[in-house]
């Protein structure tokens, strides 16, 4: 039964007004919303990269320095995400707002011009996406770093590798499955996100998710919206398959389970 529902879900995407192989939906969708697709790729890619930079040291620290309190730190990482997504994003609205503390400080040190603002810019949207998907990055990284055999690092040290070399030659390669899983789990939802662009940006920051959302729910242009979703899905599926090929499905699974 579950199987059936899932299958019909895949097929439910096709244009439903009347089915006549309207491939023009696809080409129209691509040509009209080319910019939003590219922007989604840029924002999601940037957010994923920043999330990786923030998460890797944190996961490393929890896995290697956490000791008996590892689980406690993990709870701390997940905890903020028990506040509803929207409320978190609204909180970022408050933080980044024009009279808010971040803007004031940045103006004082002249990073931001006196009429500069953060809300309603690309930076705000990317920051929001980075923040909202951070645990999807930290958890797989932690899982793979946790499994690294410390004796291998000691062995590297015994063989005269200094700490930097042993990190890049031993620890980092061993944690790569976690990096891949984390990148995937961050990048995919980030690609489809529309809440951050809507609440922290303006129509000039809108991503493909915003387009799909408005085509579906406001304009009721179902075929276009379905074509857009399908393109998004197809692109992501290709990425997933490449990653799955590179890693093997089982290891991807192990990284995905918290």
């Amino acid at each position, binding site marked *: 039964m579950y199987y059936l529902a899932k299958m019909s879900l895949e097929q*439910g995407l096709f244009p439903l007004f009347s089915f006549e192989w309207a491939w023009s939906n696809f080409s129209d969708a691509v040509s009209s919303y080319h910019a939003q697709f590219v922007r989604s790729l840029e924002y999601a890619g940037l957010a994923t990269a920043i999330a990786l930079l923030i998460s890797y040291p944190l996961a*490393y*620290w929890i896995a290697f320095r956490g000791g008996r309190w590892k*689980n406690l*730190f993990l709870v701390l990482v997940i905890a903020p995400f028990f506040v509803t997504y*929207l409320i978190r994003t609204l909180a970022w609205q408050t933080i980044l707002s024009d009279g808010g503390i971040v803007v004031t400080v940045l103006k004082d040190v002249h990073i931001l011009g006196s009429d500069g603002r953060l809300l309603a810019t690309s930076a705000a949207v990317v920051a929001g996406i980075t923040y909202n998907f951070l645990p999807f990055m930290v958890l797989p990284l932690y899982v793979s770093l946790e499994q690294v055999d410390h004796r291998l690092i000691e062995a590297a040290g015994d063989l005269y590798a200094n700490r930097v070399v042993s990190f890049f030659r031993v620890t980092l390669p061993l944690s790569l499955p976690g990096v891949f899983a984390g990148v995937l789990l961050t990048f995919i939802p980030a690609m489809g996100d529309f809440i951050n662009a809507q609440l922290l940006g303006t129509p000039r920051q809108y991503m493909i998710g915003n387009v799909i959302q408005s085509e579906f*729910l406001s304009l009721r242009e179902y075929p276009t919206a379905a074509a857009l979703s399908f393109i998004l899905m197809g692109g992501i599926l290709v990425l997933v398959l490449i990653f799955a090929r590179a890693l093997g499905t089982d290891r991807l699974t192990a990284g995905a*389970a918290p």
Partner: protein
Amino acid sequence: MIARARRHVLDVYAVLALGYLFLPIAIVIAFSFNNPLGRFNYTWSGFTFQNWLHPLAYPGLGGAIRVSLEIAFLSALVATAFGTLIALALVRYRFRGSSTTNLLIFVPMTTPEIVMGASLLTLFLNWKIPQGFGTILIAHILFNISYVVVTVRARLVGFDRHLEEAAMDLGANEIVTFFRVTLPLIAPGILAAGLLAFALSVDDFVITYFNAGTVTTFPLFVWGAARVAVPPQINVIGTAFFVIAVGGMLANVLLQNRRARNA
């Protein structure tokens, strides 16, 4: 000396990262005590307990929360039951299409929520099912099953089948073995999966947004409110949910730590 400095660099970095994670939460909690002048709860304008004393004073909020909780409870229940059975089937047997099912389980987890929501909406429109409580429930069960399967399967993979064989050797039939041996052993996994499903359901916005019709859940209420006003009661509810969830998890971790120390 340099090594020690580097060690501290990492410590400081980790603390900063945790601080970054908690900054918005601190804002949410602080502003739940705010006494906003206008309709928007963005600037601090005075401390009050009023919001906490009357958390449901804002019109429509109470109903939205009740809908959210009902859907979360029902979808977690159904998804946990089905998900556990699927996980058992996937781990125990190789059947026609089992590898396909294995892959399909990941489809909802690796699909952007917006595509999930959109495709479900298309499905409901095609089948002429009116959107409302029922469609939200179906959608939530659907995405929750995947998470339940993954969580329960993780527990089953480490399962010692010899225990079941031992029960059978001692004269238990398959049904008795399942209820007296298998189920108690995987119960923690099932419980975790159920709680995860509940949390995911309460938090879900995108998929619900597409399939809700005129029904309003708590995240939908926040979304609607964000366009015209942001009442501090939203922060109160958010904070309350946060405290309950995190309190439970912390208690669990501390308990495990104590147990580990005693053992």
